[in-house]
């Protein structure tokens, strides 16, 4: 069987959901990603770890083409979602972003009501009927474990929520378009321990329905919440393995040095 056939089969089996193949990215002269071959499994959490500037965010952003608009960016290789190259000519980026949602480090709700924040995406995709939107808003807020806290203040400005609530609102917003994959770039680094715990608990629930890729600088968080861990260094993917193996017996010396805090 060819590599391609094996991969296609794995995707069909619901195993590897998304993968990159020899992915290179240049920001002008900066070679930020150097031939990344990474697999993201369905219904699992994959954590991307590595020192600052190693390319984690860049890699995450290539998965839903958030880098396209960066000036002087050059991308080669492929990112395959459900058997289709997301950089293919036929791909509609809006549809791609609906399938692959993103949550950022700092909560960034739009300056509008809680309700309108969630309804924003579905409206962009042409959903107008109130009853449908109501249903989506409730389902997304329930999914993000925020419904009970905001159900009586859906018309209030999103910016009046606490930081932790705002971040869960951003997760709800990402859920509203019915994604398959959720990308999160350091989603808890601006949050207090309790809010962080809530998001971590939430991720454990969300992975039943979504595939999650999270960038984190918190090694304990990666060990706690992820099933797979990918270690990046200087634009290379050094090692990607089951998290339990990675934090017990990493194969690469550089991984061991990093996770035991010996360089960074």
């Amino acid at each position, binding site marked *: 069987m060819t590599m391609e056939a094996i991969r296609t089969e794995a995707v069909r089996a619901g195993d590897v959901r998304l993968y990159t193949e020899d992915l290179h990215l240049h920001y002008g002269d900066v070679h930020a990603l150097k031939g990344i071959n990474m697999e993201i499994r369905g219904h699992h959490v994959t954590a991307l770890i590595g020192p600052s500037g190693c390319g984690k965010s860049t890699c995450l952003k290539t998965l839903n083409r958030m880098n396209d608009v960066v000036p002087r960016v050059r991308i080669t290789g492929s990112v395959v979602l459900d058997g289709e190259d997301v950089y293919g000519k036929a791909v509609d980026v809006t549809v791609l972003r609906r399938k692959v949602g993103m949550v950022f480090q700092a909560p960034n709700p739009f300056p509008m009501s809680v309700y309108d924040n969630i309804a924003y995406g579905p409206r962009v995709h042409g959903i107008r009927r109130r009853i449908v939107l109501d249903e989506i808003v409730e389902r997304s807020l329930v999914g993000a474990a925020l419904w009970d806290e905001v159900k009586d203040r859906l018309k209030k400005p999103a910016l009046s929520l606490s930081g932790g609530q705002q971040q869960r609102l951003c997760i709800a917003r990402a859920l509203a378009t019915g994604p398959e994959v959720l990308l999160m770039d350091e989603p808890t680094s601006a949050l207090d321990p309790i809010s962080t715990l809530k998001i971590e608990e939430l991720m454990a629930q969300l992975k039943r329905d979504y595939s999650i890729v999270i960038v984190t600088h918190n090694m304990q968080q990666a060990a706690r919440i992820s099933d797979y861990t990918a270690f990046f260094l200087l634009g290379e993917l050094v090692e990607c393995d089951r998290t339990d193996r990675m934090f*017990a*017996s990493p194969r690469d010396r550089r991984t061991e040095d990093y*996770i*035991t*805090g010996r360089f960074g």
Partner: protein
Amino acid sequence: MARSHYEHELEHLHVEIIKMGSLIEGAIEDSTRAFASHDLALCARIIRRDQTIDEMEKAIESRCLWLIAREQPVASDLRKITTALKMVTDMERIGDNAADIAELTMRIAEKNVFSDSGHILQMAGAAMLMVRDAVSSYVHTDLVLARDTQRRDDEVDAYFNLIKRELVHVFKADESHLDNAIDLLLIAKYLERIADHAVNICEWVEFSVTGTHKSAQIF
């Protein structure tokens, strides 16, 4: 970037383990000597010193737990600390076994007629060396030494069987020495246990390097 504070703490842990190691080696040596010379004062000192060994065990355990809590170590760092936590239990038992020998010696009214038996002293020497090498294999993360030390358990077992056969032989010739023979056999048994604890330590050292304990991959 080096984690200097953490490395420093780890070094401290090693120093404590080396200290505890030399205390238990001394206890084995003294207890066999006290037995051979029926030195009751030395016996009393050994039993008192066993408290210090117990306290060291607690101190090392506490140090390990704080290291885990503060540094949240993973991979080989976590194995190394877990190994310390496991092996101090065996080290403490070795101390107990030496104290047991001292207590037994104190209970005997007079000098055991077999106490100068060359084999018991040789056996004690072999067991003591196993303990020293077991501790040293931990401190130096020396897998070869750990494995070699485990194999030497057979030597100590052979001494035990030899001493047992000798005692049976002597007993058959002269039944009046039954008590003495049993005491000596008990001491040989304690020494044999000490060697077993040294083997346990080596098994944990093996784990600290490979993640495998008694052929089971556990971390």
